């Protein structure tokens, strides 16, 4: 007879849709964000197909603009932002600190419903004719000129923002109040520190973008003069408000991925992290300084030179905590006991791609250079290195790492390694040529482009099709493992951490007896062994 766990504890749709179990809610999120990822990916493929040729021949200009807008909106607000926190964080945060659930299980379920409601609004906008403002909704285009479903799409983002706020709130209270006895702050897994920092951004930043979006809707529907100069407004004000959230939002995407990578590097090097407190505090530093760099999006918008210089120097400063993390991860591998299982391949890929993505961000922080590359494909390449090379690699790495825990099944490791390599190759082929196209001067959001950019765009489109294959393979072997996968024991990787001490899949209450913590995570060399070694 099968032991009772969260998956077989209750059957039927209602037991899932009305669940208060953080693990089941994580599964609800997993299914829905996978759906949104497929939708966003479909739009990405349309973009890459259109850009195979210089002329705008596959889609009309209007359709193309709607397609890239939906790609951005869906990927940013409905996939990247919720991905790691709402799926892996939801599942793992309580378990990793020795708690039975999040602090507010009902609010947790509510956040999923809000997310779905917001998603439905945005999809309605897409299906009823689309929205063509770009995911950035720049004014006065979005409020005065765009002739598409701006308000519906904007309301979708407004609504889904509350899901983000509630998740952040839940994590912060849980991490403060529900740690198991002995789980002191400096014994917390780094995944938890990353989620703590992320949650701070979620609850402090999201309300600002919510208000901004409401103002866009108000100006569009009621002609209140806020951003449109014809009504006495200031169009650049929108950019300040928008980026005040949307730059930190990039850290909402990347910080949890950094947390995942910290866990994976330790587990697959069988070694505790090098410089624990530097990694932990660098997450907080990124969350705090990240709020002070938004103006680097406005270097060519006529911002005061001195304001620009402040934003520029702070943008360089915010890169330092990221650099500290990369060096510490690298040092962690030194003298480890390293295995090349698929999660480790994703983590190593993350380190390489994030390093390139982060360093090319400095190009954009350098004011004189940003003038040239601003709004070109250089920017597109840079943020895809962070969001796809960073956040999605981290997400996939975490999904592979914890899949046996979440489902109780093992997937095909050889296939997983093949897929990781295909993703890495496809990613670089897709996005590296865009750095070159960007420095050559190809502007972003162009439906048609001068013929000299074609070779680079063909390479990019070819890479995108390889990348798509790389994403489809895990989907297949994950699905297969659910039915035919070998059963996983408590700790298939030989890793350390509370989540690996409980059965796979975990029982509904996570811990039958509340654990008492006596040391930090990933302590592979125990005091007794140390004595022996000495």
């Amino acid at each position, binding site marked *: 007879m099968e032991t009772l766990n969260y998956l077989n504890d209750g059957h039927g749709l209602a037991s899932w849709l009305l669940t208060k179990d953080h693990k089941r809610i994580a599964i609800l999120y997993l299914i829905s964000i996978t759906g949104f990822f497929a939708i966003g990916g479909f739009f990405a493929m349309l973009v890459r197909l259109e850009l195979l040729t210089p002329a705008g021949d596959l889609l009309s*200009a209007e359709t193309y*603009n709607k397609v890239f807008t939906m790609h951005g909106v869906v990927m940013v607000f409905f996939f990247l932002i919720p991905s790691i926190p709402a799926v892996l964080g939801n599942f793992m945060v309580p378990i990793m600190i020795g708690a039975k659930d999040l602090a507010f299980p009902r609010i947790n379920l509510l956040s999923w419903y809000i997310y779905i409601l917001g998603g439905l609004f945005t999809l309605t906008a897409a299906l009823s004719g689309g929205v063509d403002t*770009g995911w950035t909704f*720049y004014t*006065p*285009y979005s409020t005065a*000129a*765009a002739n598409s479903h701006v308000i519906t799409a904007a309301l979708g983002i407004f609504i889904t923002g509350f899901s983000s706020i509630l998740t952040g709130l839940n994590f912060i209270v849980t991490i403060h109040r529900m740690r198991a006895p002995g789980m002191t702050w400096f014994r917390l897994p780094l995944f938890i520190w990353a989620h703590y920092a992320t949650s701070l951004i979620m609850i402090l930043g999201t309300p600002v973008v919510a208000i901004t979006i409401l103002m866009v809707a108000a100006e569009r529907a009621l002609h209140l003069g806020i951003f449109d*100069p*014809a009504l006495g407004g200031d*169009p650049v004000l929108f950019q300040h408000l928008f980026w005040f959230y949307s730059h930190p939002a990039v850290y909402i995407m990347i910080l949890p991925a950094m947390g995942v990578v910290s866990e994976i590097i330790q587990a697959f090097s*069988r*070694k*505790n992290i090098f*410089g*624990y*407190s*530097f990694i932990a505090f660098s997450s907080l530093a990124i969350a705090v300084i990240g709020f002070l760099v938004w103006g680097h999006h406005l*270097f*060519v918008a006529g*911002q*005061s*030179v*001195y304001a*620009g210089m402040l934003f*520029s*120097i702070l943008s360089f*400063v915010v*890169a*330092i905590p990221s*650099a500290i993390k990369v*060096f*510490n991860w*690298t*040092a962690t591998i030194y003298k480890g*006991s*390293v295995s090349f299982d698929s999660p480790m391949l994703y983590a*190593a890929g993350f380190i*390489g791609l994030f*390093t*390139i993505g982060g*360093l090319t961000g*400095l190009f954009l*922080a*350098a004011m*004189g*250079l*940003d*003038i*040239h590359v601003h*709004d070109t494909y250089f920017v597109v390449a840079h943020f895809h290195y962070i969001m796809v090379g960073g956040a999605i690699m981290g997400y996939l790495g975490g999904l592979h790492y914890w899949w046996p825990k979440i489902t109780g099944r093992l997937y095909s490791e050889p296939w997983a390694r093949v897929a990781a390599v295909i993703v890495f190759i496809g990613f670089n082929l897709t996005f590296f040529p865009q750095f070159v196209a960007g*420095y*050559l*001067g190809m502007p972003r959001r162009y439906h*048609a482009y*001068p*013929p*000299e950019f074609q*070779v680079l765009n063909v390479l990019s489109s070819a890479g995108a099709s390889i990348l798509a294959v790389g994403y489809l393979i895990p989907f297949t072997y994950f699905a297969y493992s659910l039915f035919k996968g070998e059963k996983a024991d408590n700790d298939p990787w030989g890793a350390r951490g509370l989540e690996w001490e409980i059965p796979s899949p975990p029982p509904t209450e996570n811990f039958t007896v509340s654990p008492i913590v006596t040391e930090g995570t990933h302590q592979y060399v125990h005091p007794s062994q*140390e004595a022996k070694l000495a």
Partner: protein
Amino acid sequence: MFKNFPLFPEAASAQAGQVDAVFFFMVAVTAFFSVLIAALVVFFAIKFKRKNEEEVGADIHGSLALELLWTIIPFGIAMAMFVWGAKVFFDLSRPPVGATEVYVVGKQWMWKAQHMGGMREINELHVPVGKPVKLIMGSEDVIHSFYIPAFRVKADVIPGRYNTMWFEPTKAGTYHLFCAEYCGTKHSGMIGSIVAMEPADFEAWMSGGKAEDSPVASGAKLFQDLVCVTCHLSNAQGRGPVLSNLFGHEVELEGGAKVIADEAYLRESILNPAAKVVKGFQPVMPTFQGLITEEQLLQLIAYVRSLSQPGAAPAASTNSSTPPAAGGRN
């Protein structure tokens, strides 16, 4: 498709070399650290490959010396990048005095330019090689961005205010002009050519323009047609302030505040006359919002500028409120 396949953009302005120098420095730093990190990760992973299932890693927790090392060195490099980038930006945002001025208006989806000599162009801009050119730019509808990759310059063109940019072409030729800020359906069609010409050729081309088409002449005509002239007399007897020798000078407002009469102030005073009334005058002027186009506004401002002593006028400022701004006063 393989015939014309550049990997690096042409450098055709005095600024291009400076921007490229920062770029190459940053590419070198990026390449160095990316290769270093990748090599270390791969080297460590292979050297410390797990030998048996029971093996665990060494008991190492960190090193303050190393942490300081890899904090301070990247910080130093980052600050060098900041200073260099800011220096280039400063130069790019300060047009030299005496630069040839051209008015540019962006609208969905075309670029219009008007030279001081009277030549007008659409989706083309002719400029002389070896001379600094300053563009004073406004938008009729949404935000656009004027971008010349070969010159490494770009500036947003924003409705409701003027932005400036400047460059000095160094090589004759025809270069791409792109709109870089997404502006709607035909955004990717809002492109054109920058034609850099040898000074003699440029003079010949400019002589095709008629003096009465110059912005100043057009502005003077508008000043008559819109009956501005009935209140703004050349002596102090009018209902409105005297406009000669106004541009670039300080004006005292009702309530005691002071403001410099620059493009932004003149623009505001034409479109929203009650906003900042000059001390001693009544707010009787009607608004011209919606009655004149962006181009006509620029022409009126050009005319008012022409009423000041030559050389007395400061450079156009970009920002309507807080100086100093990009392209701010010299």
